[in-house]
């Protein structure tokens, strides 16, 4: 069932219940009024009858019937008037066979003085009448044909109104629901048109009134599309950069091998060329490893207990032996309890992240300058700093250094792919830490890994 149908039927149901309630009240009130009015008229008859017979002494039955025919008969259908005495026997008027009033009812009239009751299709009133000649009971009965007809008429009118209202409400409900939901259908159509190829398209935000739900929906869609477009763009750049980075060492190696195979050479020449190609291939493998890690690091394999204060030594051991002497490790005061220094994570990944930072520090500074690895712990915060006195990073380039494949202008002279730093940050963030880089062009760079640990 569509929302439109649901809304329509809900609307119809609500109105039907309301309408039925109002109509029932009207009908019941009318029924009450008709009955009361008829009873009042019967009572009038009974009183007139009593007056005519009993106050005007000695009136004959024929005279009353004459009177009744002339003045009273027309207005009430099948009217019957009877008078009984205290012994419950009919007086003055012969008992009408059509209305045999049962004795218990007459007795009830004697005690209660005024009783409304029904005899067959007639409504009746019994009146106790006290006269100087004795006590009498006067019964007036008649069929309420007009009242009944009026009620039936009212019922017909109400039914007609009900049916037409329902039809009208259904049609109006469908139209309004359709109109209210039209913008959603429009948004739906527009979103449907947008594919991966044209993510630049946007949903029209002015389909509906400003600030209403549909405008918000359109805005939400547009924001999502923006993020998607960004994501696609990043992915595209990543792939094209990666392809370029992979092709460069391959092209160099192929060229080198082609030149080598041109003619016969000395064994030393072969060795030199192959060593060069091997270097290129190792570079390539490292790049591929980094790329794989960049895409595969996930929290699933954070299962080691890693002592953060051990990391600097592990990392230094991973550095090429001829560079190791440049790495100086300094330690601040350690806490008396080693528990806060231990985090749950992946030792290999954390080591890789710090190694990348250390490699960068060594790569982008002069061969004779030291690189400091500083560890400190203070009030629940573990800080690992890698500090060099190298070329530094331009202020403008600093915000971009975490983009994969980004290389600052002054870094082009050094072999690298621009993957290490993004990977390091990814790993650190995976472990709930933060990686910050501060730098001053020409003076040096400090990379800082921060972990908030339970102190």
């Amino acid at each position: 069932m569509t929302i439109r149908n649901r809304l329509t039927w809900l609307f119809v149901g609500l109105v039907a219940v309301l309408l039925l309630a109002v109509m029932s009240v009207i009908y019941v009130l009318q029924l009450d009024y008709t009955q009361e009015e008829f009873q009042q008229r019967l009572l009038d008859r009974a009183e007139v009858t009593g007056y005519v017979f009993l106050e005007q002494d000695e009136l004959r039955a024929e005279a009353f019937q004459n009177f009744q025919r002339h003045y009273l008969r027309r207005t009430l259908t099948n009217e019957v008037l009877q008078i009984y005495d205290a012994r419950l026997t009919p007086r003055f008027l012969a008992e009408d066979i059509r209305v045999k009033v049962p004795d218990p009812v007459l007795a009830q009239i004697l005690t209660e003085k005024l009783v409304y009751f029904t005899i067959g299709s007639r409504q009746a009133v019994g009146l106790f009448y006290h006269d100087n000649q004795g006590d009498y009971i006067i019964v007036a009965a008649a069929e309420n044909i007009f009242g009944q007809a009026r009620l039936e008429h009212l019922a017909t009118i109400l039914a007609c109104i009900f049916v037409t209202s329902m039809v009208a409400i259904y049609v109006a409900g469908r139209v309004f629901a359709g109109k209210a939901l039209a913008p959603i259908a429009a948004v739906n159509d527009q979103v449907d048109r947008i594919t991966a190829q044209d993510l630049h398209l946007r949903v029209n935000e002015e389909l509906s009134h400003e600030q209403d739900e549909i405008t918000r929906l359109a805005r939400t869609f547009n924001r999502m599309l923006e993020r998607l477009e960004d994501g696609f763009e990043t992915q595209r750049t990543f792939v094209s950069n990666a392809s370029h980075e992979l092709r460069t060492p391959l092209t160099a190696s192929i060229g080198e091998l082609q030149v080598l195979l041109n003619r016969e050479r000395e064994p030393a020449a072969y060795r030199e060329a192959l060593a060069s190609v091997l270097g290129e291939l190792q570079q390539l493998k490292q790049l591929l490893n980094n790329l794989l890690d960049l895409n595969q690091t996930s929290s699933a394999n954070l299962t080691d207990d890693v002592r953060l204060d051990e990391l600097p030594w592990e990392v230094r051991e991973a550095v090429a032996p001829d560079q190791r002497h440049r790495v100086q490790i300094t330690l601040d005061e350690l806490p008396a309890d080693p528990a806060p220094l231990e985090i749950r994570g992946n030792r290999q990944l954390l080591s890789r992240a710090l190694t990348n930072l250390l490699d960068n520090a060594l790569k982008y500074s002069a061969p004779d300058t030291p690189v400091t690895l500083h560890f400190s712990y203070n009030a629940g915060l573990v800080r690992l700093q890698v500090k060099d006195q190298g070329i530094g990073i331009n202020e403008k380039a600093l915000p971009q250094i975490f983009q994969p494949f980004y290389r600052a202008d002054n870094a082009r002279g050094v072999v690298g792919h621009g993957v290490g730093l993004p990977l390091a940050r990814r790993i650190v963030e995976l472990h709930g830490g933060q990686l910050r880089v501060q730098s001053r062009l020409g003076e040096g760079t400090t990379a800082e890994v921060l972990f908030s640990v339970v102190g």
Partner: protein
Amino acid sequence: MARVRALTRRRGKEVKGAQLTLADLTLDTAAKTVTRAGQPIKLTAREFGLLELLMRHTGRVLSRAEIAGDVWEESFDAGSNVVDVYVNYLRNKVDKGFTQKLIHTVVGMGYVMRVE
């Protein structure tokens, strides 16, 4: 990788069975395991290095500078408490819960391991 494995295998054979023992404390330099009274003790690389150094020189008092130079290959500023702190970490793992203490402080000189 294969070459690295081959190297470690050869080295492993060389030092195989190199177990250091003091009272009920045993340290296996090849397997890098430590047990006391049969219970394995989990140590970090630096803690293991420190214990190995102390056990190799059982009965000899080692100064903080000697320990720092060997375990951390570094000479720390006088301000750093790293040696003291690590000896403390090690005590908590090795001596805690045992009546017989094996790691001892020699005031003004350094640390020594011996049965007293």
